């Protein structure tokens, strides 16, 4: 894998990835990366808890949220390295070093790839509900079969008609619309169906199990007690593969503890960050 850097103009990266920087300006940097499905709004309930002590950087991957859709190409984003390149671009252009990278779901693996490409820029990893491989094989239980993933793609397709009719004119037509505070129903998770399909495939058909052993930075694995996407066995696997990692099981149901159990999630992250500073 070769991730290249230093080519983008900073304004381009900020606009391209809809970068938002908040929190304490002189604090250590925490980057919050969303997973497949929605966008940086996923973090809205944990940002206040982090903002007192940390400089919080939020962004949307190209193809998600309010990123610049014209920067998307299937070539680049059909592999996790394409998303990792978004992270590398962001870290280089903002010249961030030794950040704590908090990645939800597939972003945990994206963060791992980015940390390997620019080790001086990522000082620690927080993996929220991570899964290095969603599909079962002989000895490994990821929780899904290849056919299940096809079903998800079909679900994306069947909700696409609604997206197309209601969301497309708003999202595509007025990217710079002024009334940003007024959120549209379902808009956090609205994506161009072609882009969503590629992201879904890339996410659910990827296999990063061999990459786990390459992690050398302090790592927190945050799993949920009841997660239909990343079951407990997977959390245990990730923890076992990453030497020296910490595993915390949140009393949460579902795949998005930052929404369903925001206090427990931010408390676990803060505790970890204090110990790794």
């Amino acid at each position, binding site marked *: 894998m070769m991730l290249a850097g230093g080519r983008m103009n900073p304004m381009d990266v900020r606009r391209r990835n809809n970068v938002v920087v908040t929190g304490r300006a002189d604090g250590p940097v925490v980057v919050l990366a969303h*997973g*497949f*499905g*929605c966008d940086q*709004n*996923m973090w*809205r309930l944990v940002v206040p808890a982090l903002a007192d002590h940390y400089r919080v950087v939020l962004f949307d991957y190209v193809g998600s949220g309010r990123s610049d859709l014209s920067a998307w190409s299937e070539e680049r984003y059909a592999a996790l390295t394409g998303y990792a390149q978004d992270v590398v671009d962001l870290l280089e252009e903002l010249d961030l070093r030794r950040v704590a990278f908090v990645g939800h*779901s597939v972003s945990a693996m994206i963060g791992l790839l980015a940390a390997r490409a620019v080790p001086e820029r990522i000082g620690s990893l927080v993996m929220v509900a991570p899964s290095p491989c969603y599909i079962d094989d002989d000895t490994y239980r990821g929780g*899904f079969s290849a056919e*299940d*993933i*096809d*079903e*998800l*793609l*079909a*679900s*994306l*397709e*069947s*909700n*696409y*008609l*609604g997206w197309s009719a209601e969301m497309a004119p708003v999202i595509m037509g007025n990217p710079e619309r002024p009334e940003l505070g007024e*959120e549209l*129903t*379902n808009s*956090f*998770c609205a994506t161009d169906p072609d882009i969503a399909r590629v992201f879904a495939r890339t996410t*659910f058909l990827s296999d990063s199990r061999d990459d786990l052993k390459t992690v050398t930075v302090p790592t927190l694995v945050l799993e949920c007690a*009841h*997660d*239909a*996407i990343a079951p407990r066995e997977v959390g245990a696997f990730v923890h076992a593969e990453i030497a020296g990692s910490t595993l915390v099981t949140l009393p949460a*149901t*579902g*795949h*998005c503890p930052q*929404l*369903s159990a925001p206090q427990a999630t931010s408390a676990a992250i803060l505790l970890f960050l204090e110990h790794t500073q």
Partner: protein
Amino acid sequence: MCRADEHPEPREAGAGASTDAAFTALLEDSAEELYESAPCGYLSTLMDGTIAKINATLLDWLGLERETVVGRKRFADLLTVGGRLYHETHFAPLLQMQGEISGIALEMKTCGSDRLPVLVSSAVKHSSDGEPLLIRTTVFDASDRRAYEQELLHRKQDADEARRQAEEAREQAEADRSRLQEALAVLQQSLLPASLPAVPGVETAVYYHTASPDRLGGDFYDLFPLDGKRWAFFLGDVCGKGPQAAAVTSLTRYTLRTAALHDPDPVAALTTLNSVLHDRYTGGDPRYCTAIFGVLEPDPANDCVTVRLASGGHPPALVARSDGTAALLPTPGGFLVGALAHAHFASTTTELHPGDTLLLYTDGLTEARTGPDRTSLYGDDALLAFVTDHAGAPPEEMIQALAGLLRGLGDGVDDDTALLALGSPAHTSAHSPATSHLR
């Protein structure tokens, strides 16, 4: 029609009584009864998705017993695996962020291995102090709608696929076309010399205009040494277009070169070519060309160049003189080369003195259209007048002027055109008045 007027009262009374009875029955339909038997599914879950309440309609649709569901299953458990993934990645986060979500298409598992397409709406119920308490969910059977949407989706996929295939075919055709053009260009170049050799005491210039990159031209020219003192040149036009014409052009070029080395007499060279072409292409598909073949013999002592040339069916060469005149160099009666077993070729001789230029051309120029149709062609007279105007100009300048003329004729030039000019250099000390009038 009239009966209503005959017995209005009893009917009204009866209708009124039955309406009242219906209203009474409706009012007696308890909220509980409505909840259980509503034409849609209802369920309520705890915030973690655990099902606390579910109506009979939904249980019936799914073929499930209440006691296996309440307190034991989560809402996501009722969904297909794909639906569950969608629920976890889209539905649940949106519901948590917005407090409600509506009209999401999901599929539920039924007791067989069937699937029930549904449209799901959920809302979070909050306590009086704003704490989320439970999630209320309504489920509509969307089988019909989904079937219709699937149909639309398939059509869209078919249309996308057809468009993709058409695009692919177009790109392939484009690639084939550009490969073919490349091959044609290479072949075309092989029919012409890459550059002309330097001939002492003679200036030379050439120009080749390709009318269409798709159609190999049949025009050709060449200039090459015979011995230490003489050089041979030729220019001609093979009848027709395309690969067959190119094959004839190639055969013609090498035949003339070989023939000239054997016997440099212009008539002999054309006669040899005639035999070769006639023998090779006989019968119903005759192939022939028109050509002028000539020999240059510079005479430095007398400051002139002797030109002997012969023509086979080719438009006559032109000679522009340093004194500002120009004339045809007629070779009447010369036959097409290759058309007949025994052909006659006519020869002529001229001398080029300093400032004189000999011009050979193909009929792409003289047959160029100057109007909308073929009734007005550029013609021999116009060419003679043009060359007369440029008499005294050295070959390079003459060719440049003619190239400009061709460009000016634009689309009117619908055939390839070859131009070859050979001149005796004017004395550099004397500035020719004919040259200066160009400027």
